[in-house]
């Protein structure tokens, strides 16, 4: 009998089975359910049901207000207000009000996604927690509503793809460049319904790098994108005062069966840029050099961590943002913001001309802050460049690493960060 993949093992354990096979349906009680500003719409679906049946468990939900913060209209303000009332009424402990950060960063910083756990969230980038060996995936609002009532949901056991990494990324090339390359190679549906496992030379990839990679799993369709738990992971949790005896990691068997196995030599990765309007339209930065950019956007749940800003500041210190462009700075959390304030990174970025936004989703979803005008072009560290994503269907979004965005902000045009 062959071994099991990560996804098979974790779903088997959670379903109380010794073996599961791809395609099998299992019923699971997830460890946490993440919802954000959409909590308002979710509880709106089940307001009567909550009265009749009650909340399944007040420690299941993790609620983070992050998408449109501070509220931009009476409508979004009312939404936030209803979430706060719900939290109070049901005594929900894991609630994080505006300013704490982007939900995925907050879940990780608060230790609410642990190795060997299953976490679902009504946000497609919930797959980020694969960075710490957690099986995590996005669901819709209705499913989140049902989970609040029953605590239970179903999964189809996915087939898996194995990505083996070799060597290290070159200087000024980052995890973002690797994941844009991988998505462009296998396509936006290359991992649809599948679990993607990362193996091999991982020790040089920080947790921040791994979050960037896992976060973008959904951009190749993945159900989950996951890393094994190693010393880097343990060190991350030690910093959070979470002892390794308090989690129970799971990893694939050596003889697990994969649909597909791919190997990447990280030393061969070059800075990548994804062209509009699809994430899998990635090209080496050399193909799009000198393209004018109206807005440079540094941050988000993909690339809004301390390392990202430090790498950007290394390039921007003592320089100024080109007058033909603008630079937006969006830390992924208050913790990140605090750290970059204290170490001087933020000073460098702001003195260079960066505009600081509050920790939240900001311009990424086009609802407010940094909306683009028709004909404008943005170079962004976010995870999506869909048409209309930043509020205007006639604008263009290019995706790149923090290094490439910082370098491009200096010249007002797409620039190879290795040449700065």
């Amino acid at each position, binding site marked *: 009998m062959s071994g099991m993949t990560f996804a098979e093992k974790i779903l088997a354990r959670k379903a109380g089975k010794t073996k599961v096979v791809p395609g099998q349906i299992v019923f699971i009680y997830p460890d946490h359910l993440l919802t954000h500003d*959409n909590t308002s719409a979710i509880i709106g679906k089940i307001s009567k049901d909550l009265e009749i049946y009650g909340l399944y468990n007040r420690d299941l939900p993790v609620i983070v207000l992050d998408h449109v913060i501070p509220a931009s209209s009476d409508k979004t303000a009312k939404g936030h207000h209803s979430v706060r009332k719900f939290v109070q009424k049901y005594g929900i402990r894991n609630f994080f009000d505006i300013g704490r950060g982007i939900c995925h960063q907050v879940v990780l910083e608060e230790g609410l996604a642990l190795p060997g756990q299953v976490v679902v969230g009504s946000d497609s980038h919930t797959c980020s927690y694969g960075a710490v060996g957690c099986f995590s995936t996005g669901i*819709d609002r209705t499913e989140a509503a*049902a989970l609040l009532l029953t605590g239970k949901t*179903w999964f189809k056991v996915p087939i898996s793809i194995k990505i083996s990494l070799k060597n290290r990324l070159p200087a000024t090339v980052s995890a973002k460049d690797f994941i844009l390359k991988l998505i462009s190679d296998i396509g936006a549906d290359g991992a649809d319904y599948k679990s993607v496992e990362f193996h091999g030379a991982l020790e040089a990839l920080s947790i921040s790098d791994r979050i960037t990679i896992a976060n973008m799993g959904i951009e190749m369709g993945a*159900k989950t994108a996951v890393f094994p738990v190693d010393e880097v992971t343990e060190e991350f949790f030690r910093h959070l005062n979470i002892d390794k005896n308090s989690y129970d990691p799971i990893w694939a068997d050596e003889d697990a069966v994969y649909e597909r196995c791919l190997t990447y030599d990280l030393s061969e990765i070059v800075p990548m840029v994804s062209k509009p309007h699809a994430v899998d339209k990635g090209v080496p930065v050399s193909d799009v050099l000198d393209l004018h950019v109206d807005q440079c956007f540094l941050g988000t749940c993909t690339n809004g961590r301390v390392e990202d800003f430090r790498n950007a500041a290394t390039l921007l210190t003592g320089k100024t943002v080109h007058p033909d462009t603008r630079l937006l700075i969006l830390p992924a959390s208050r913790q990140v913001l605090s750290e970059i304030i204290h170490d001087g990174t933020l000073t460098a970025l702001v003195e260079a001309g960066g505009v600081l936004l509050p920790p939240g989703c900001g311009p990424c979803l086009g609802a407010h802050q940094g*909306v683009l005008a028709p004909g404008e072009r943005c170079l962004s560290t976010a995870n999506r460049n869909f*048409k209309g994503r930043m509020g205007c*269907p006639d604008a263009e979004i290019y995706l790149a690493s923090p290094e490439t965005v910082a370098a491009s902000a200096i010249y007002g045009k797409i620039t190879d960060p290795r040449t700065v």
Partner: protein
Amino acid sequence: MTIWFYGNQDGINTDMLFPGKYTYTCATADEIKPHLLEDLDPNFAQSVQKDDLIFAGKNFGCGSSREQPVLGLKSVGIQAVIAKSFARIFYRAAINQGLLLIESPEAVDAYSPGKPVSIDFINGRITVGEDTFGFPTLPEEVTAIREAGGLLEYTRKFLDSRLKNT
């Protein structure tokens, strides 16, 4: 019945089906409808009618987990979306709302304007012009959700039966 054909387009994403900028201000069917497919086909929202069909390419519904696209298509009465493939969260959301999705690359390729289309849901068959193709039906455990009329109805049935038994 109108057939909305986008079969030559792969990766029709949730932003094209329902722009993200409206995600936190539109939740009801009436609020969603005017923006349905806004950045894909500006004629859709005003002309769509009950029992219409949509044809699309690969990875339909990729991107965000927002469910307005599914809620919107269900509430305007779309009979089914026939695509070469669907993105996972969209597929799941469709089950949860009772919206029928048919994964059949052959049917999408076989369609051309004017060809009649009929669907046999029970046996998992779609006929386009002269050709009939099978499509994968849902596993039994999941069919129950759709048959109940969607996940919330299914959940209420389950919780009611539990209340009765205690």
